[in-house]
């Protein structure tokens, strides 16, 4: 390898997350979260996907979005540890690594070879922001990738659903059709930053084209308003 090598963006994934805020921290937690992988024009080659439908899960290798001024950091403070303890970045899935490559295992919901945007992949459980660039797709191979004996360290237990979600009257009706269950799943996983807990605060989550406003008290999350638009992280 030369000092550097280029990785080309071959596709982008389209999801309901227009900002990073609220994305469940572990992919696969909310299976209802659907995404569509659309290939860049020069990579719309149906034969490159031949046989992929035989696999139930795939790996996506993608690009972390980081501001240009943000470089990598040897250690980071994982949110799950309360933001106080530092771990080496290679012991985490943090974006602040030397090469901004993310790795996610997602369920392959379908391969549509002929759409107006060329061949596309429908996936489920994708924890990626809308428009995230994709570098590679690989099939998930049981014998190579599934390790029943693997144990994870300090963040071994997946967050899962931790909150009871309640919608104030009229709110659920304003959520775009078909997105209600996915939104409920995202909210139940607690989309607040890892070390914030302020019962008086009204948070905002941009999801599926609407701005979802909510408060959290104890183990109950209450959606207090749903308004059109939304692209701000709050």
């Amino acid at each position: 390898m030369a000092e550097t090598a280029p990785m080309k963006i071959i596709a982008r994934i389209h999801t309901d997350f227009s900002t990073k805020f609220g994305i469940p921290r572990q992919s696969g937690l909310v299976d209802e979260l659907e995404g569509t992988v659309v290939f860049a024009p020069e990579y719309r080659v149906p034969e490159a996907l031949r046989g992929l439908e035989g696999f139930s899960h795939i790996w996506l290798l993608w690009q972390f979005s980081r501001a240009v001024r943000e470089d990598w950091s040897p250690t980071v403070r994982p949110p799950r540890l309360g933001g106080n303890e530092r771990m080496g970045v290679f012991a985490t899935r943090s974006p602040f690594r030397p090469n901004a490559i993310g790795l996610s295992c997602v369920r392959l919901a379908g391969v549509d070879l002929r759409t107006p945007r060329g061949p596309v992949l429908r996936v489920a459980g994708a924890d990626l922001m809308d428009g995230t660039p994709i570098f590679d797709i690989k099939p998930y191979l049981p014998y190579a990738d599934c390790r029943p004996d693997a144990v994870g360290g300090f963040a071994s237990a997946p967050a899962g659903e931790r909150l009871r979600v309640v919608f104030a009257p009229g709110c659920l009706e304003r959520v775009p059709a078909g997105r209600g269950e996915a939104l409920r799943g995202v909210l139940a996983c607690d989309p607040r930053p890892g070390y914030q807990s302020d019962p008086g605060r009204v948070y905002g989550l941009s999801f599926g084209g609407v701005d979802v406003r909510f408060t959290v008290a104890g183990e109950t999350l209450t959606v207090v308003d749903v308004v059109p638009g939304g692209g701000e992280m709050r």
Partner: protein
Amino acid sequence: MQTLSIRPIGAIRIGEEGPYVELEPPYLPALKGLEYYSHVHILWWFSRRDNPADRGVTQVHPAHGAAPGPMGVFASRSPCRPNPIALSTAEITFVDAGRGRIGLDWTDAEDGTPVVDIKPYSPGLDRVEDCREPAWHGDWPGSYEASRAAGNKY
């Protein structure tokens, strides 16, 4: 064409006592805490395939008698693909923070292969118990150990 410049952070070494990743000095502090994981993902570079011809491959022919013809590159782990980046999972045999080394229980990479990222294998993220692969594909060694014994590369 939009690209991201990738730089090596170390290399895979095949030592007398087995394979390991050796990190370049600036990256040593980034290992802190990896010892709490049993398995690791290594993202490495198929450096011998980093040329226009191999990066332009769209289909491959698996070395398996029952394969139903060519497979799309994205349905394979072939080194010939648009971005020649490899993903391997290994059990961590040791972490030597002082020398920046992570012992691996196996690798199919050659000595000196550039490494571009290390990630912990997190069961909640990476382990799919109920996954499916094509029937013909499942004819391949039924276990990781058998696959290694057969020296399989795919």
